């Protein structure tokens, strides 16, 4: 891929990276390791609603859930962030006041990104103006697949500038880029253009996050840190629905990038339905038995 990266990336072998990802699913987390992992997963969750039907009422529900996912006796931490469309940012900010939970807004013509750059930058500035502390942008997959990497790079840099103080998460939509070589390359490209976080997917395209594709992102941020000393975050999003899968991601992060990335500052899950299963597992660990899903508040 013809673009002068400051830190060139190695090729990725598809069979090898998928085998490595499968290896992490063989790890067995029991007892205290599982307890700690489940709570860590909650603290890393970007509780998300991105529907045309979203309303203030729906966002209020979500914010309440993010503040206190479970009854206090479970000692479950609050979620990492709440992620909404720009129109609902102001409402979410109000609902989360005093909680310390940041509001993330998708922007830049989410989910397709197929809008003129000025509109996408305006979208970003609007979300930041409404109080978003984190911006989840989408790259122009069309430009990337055309081979116009300069445009992809410069757009990310422009959005970074428009985001000001807000943290910038760059969504690749790996399901549309398809190859791991593309993913590794775009990860580095985004980092060099100013991304604070790199993120797999919008959740609107299948396949969304997979363990293997997220591993490629984590390897990229690890190598970038080793080369520069700067830590970039990673966010798999979409398709992660069970506590078991969430723990597999944590195992992967643990054994690839190590302790430093096991924090909501550097690793997040973008998920709408994962929380329920994690809650049920936390309750099972404490009570010693499974409970009906009826006992858990949805939203």
């Amino acid at each position: 891929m013809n673009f002068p990266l400051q830190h060139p990336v190695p090729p990725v072998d598809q069979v090898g990276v998928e085998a490595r990802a499968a290896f992490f699913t063989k790890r067995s987390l029991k007892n205290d390791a599982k307890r700690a992992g489940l709570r860590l997963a909650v603290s890393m969750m970007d509780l998300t609603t991105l529907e045309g039907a979203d309303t203030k009422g729906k966002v209020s529900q979500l914010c309440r859930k993010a503040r206190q996912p479970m009854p206090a006796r479970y000692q479950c931490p609050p979620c990492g962030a709440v992620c909404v469309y720009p129109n609902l940012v102001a409402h979410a900010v109000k609902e989360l006041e005093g909680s310390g939970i940041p509001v993330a807004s998708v922007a830049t013509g989410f989910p397709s990104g197929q809008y003129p750059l000025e509109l996408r930058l305006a979208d970003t500035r609007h979300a930041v103006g409404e109080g978003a502390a984190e911006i989840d942008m989408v790259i122009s997959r069309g430009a990337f697949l055309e081979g116009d990497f300069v445009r992809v790079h410069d757009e990310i840099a422009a959005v970074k500038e428009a985001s000001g103080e807000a943290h910038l998460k760059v969504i690749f939509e790996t399901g549309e880029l398809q190859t791991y070589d593309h993913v590794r390359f775009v990860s580095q490209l985004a980092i060099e253009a100013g991304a604070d976080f790199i993120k797999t997917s919008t959740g609107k395209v299948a396949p969304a996050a997979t363990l293997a594709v997220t591993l490629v992102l984590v390897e990229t941020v690890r190598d970038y840190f080793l080369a520069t000393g700067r830590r970039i975050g990673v966010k798999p999003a979409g398709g992660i629905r069970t506590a078991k899968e969430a723990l597999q991601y944590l195992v992967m992060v643990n054994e690839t990038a190590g302790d430093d990335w096991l924090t909501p500052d550097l690793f997040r899950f973008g998920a709408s339905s994962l929380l329920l299963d994690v809650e049920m597992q936390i309750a099972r660990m404490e009570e010693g038995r499974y409970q009906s899903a009826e006992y858990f508040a949805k939203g």
Partner: protein
Amino acid sequence: MKGKKTNPDLSFAAALEYAPSPETFPVTLKKRYELFINGKFVAPKTGKYFASINPATGKRHTLIAEAGKADLDAAVRSARRAFEKTWGPMAPAERGKYLFRIARLLQEKARELAVVETMDGGKPIRESRDFDLPLVAAHFFHHAGWADKLEYAFPGRKPAPIGVAAQVIPWNFPLLMAAWKIAPALACGNTVVLKPAETTSVTALHLAEIFQEAGLPPGVVNIVTGAAETGAALVAHPGINKVAFTGSTEVGKRIASSVAGTNKQLTLELGGKAANLVFADAPLDEAIEGVINGIYFNQGHVCCAGSRLLVQESIHEEFVARLGRRLRTLRVGDPLDKNTDVGAINSKEQLGRITALIGSGIEEGAELHESPSALPAEGYWCRPCFFTGVTPAHRIAREEIFGPVLSVMTFRTPSEAVQKANDTCYGLSAGIWTDKGSRILKIASQLKAGVIWANTYNQFDPASPFGGYKESGFGREGGRQGLAAYVKLG
């Protein structure tokens, strides 16, 4: 990556510490294991038993019968009778049914057998569960299918069984090596006297129980246990027609001279000192995994282990740094823990050999990089490690260590890579890591090794032949080629 800062480093200080996760499937070993002759478990005529040690504790966990000359005579006689009366004359499709039955029973008992294999040999339960046992069953399934189709394997020829096969197997993959030996022999209509390795006899005797359960006619497979003398007496026995041995090159040479001048057919699968060639354009993260798997799989007790790493000089520094970081995340310890990556060294003797060779590496001036892992207080353990600054003349670059010890060397050009990879008396396997397909094909044709993996390592399938060049032996196991070792072609 020249001139990069080396300050930033990763921390693997267990922010997410894995709690112990022992395999809990209940298994009780017998107090002692007898010989398996003519379909029955019988006490040895020697009256002697030797201790079998669990290498993860260093303690005796059972007793194994020691076969003497009279026992070997009985075993060979029983195999001969079965060859002449039952198994030899049996319709090939009927033989296939027995093999299918054995394969299914192996699958049913896979968990129990995996636990026993791990207790007896020290390998991690993850490997015995996910590698050994599935492949064991696969070998019986594969060869069950061949039993009535041998004429398709040798078009225009009339394949006939050879007779009684004496099979001597090693301790690194006890049950898997038994399967590699027994399944093709039976599929081709031969009968077997098998001698497991002294330190790992238990699973072969559990396999004998499966033979009983499958109703395999008495004498088709006989299992005689004992040490090196028992093996030597078996291959020298006048009543056998074929010798198949997997083990060290040293013993292989002795066996070759012992059967010289007899009518016995011979196949040998011996040692190795395989090279993993990593080119600058390789997929580096996957290459690291391949190198790690190549040398630390089964504690490096693997004849095809990638024990020499040849890395292109331009990426040597970076690759070694990556290797060092990856070494820190290997989990060494209780083989029955599901999260263990590297288990116990198979025996005290083997640990001694490995330690001596590590000592020679240090003495000859190579630099040792060890896993920081703490080791259990009891049992036989070796920290996974690699040496840099190794030259082709070092002992650790030439001798098979058969332990978790990797020797790292460099090359500048493809021709130097090939020259260095072939600079060994062995020729069992090799690995090539590059993003360039044409280079894989060219280099593979130049390497003198029986199995060559490209951008992967340690992949096995019953349909794929396995075997060596040079002092790694002759004959192939698995696939159509493997059948040739067990038939006479008319």
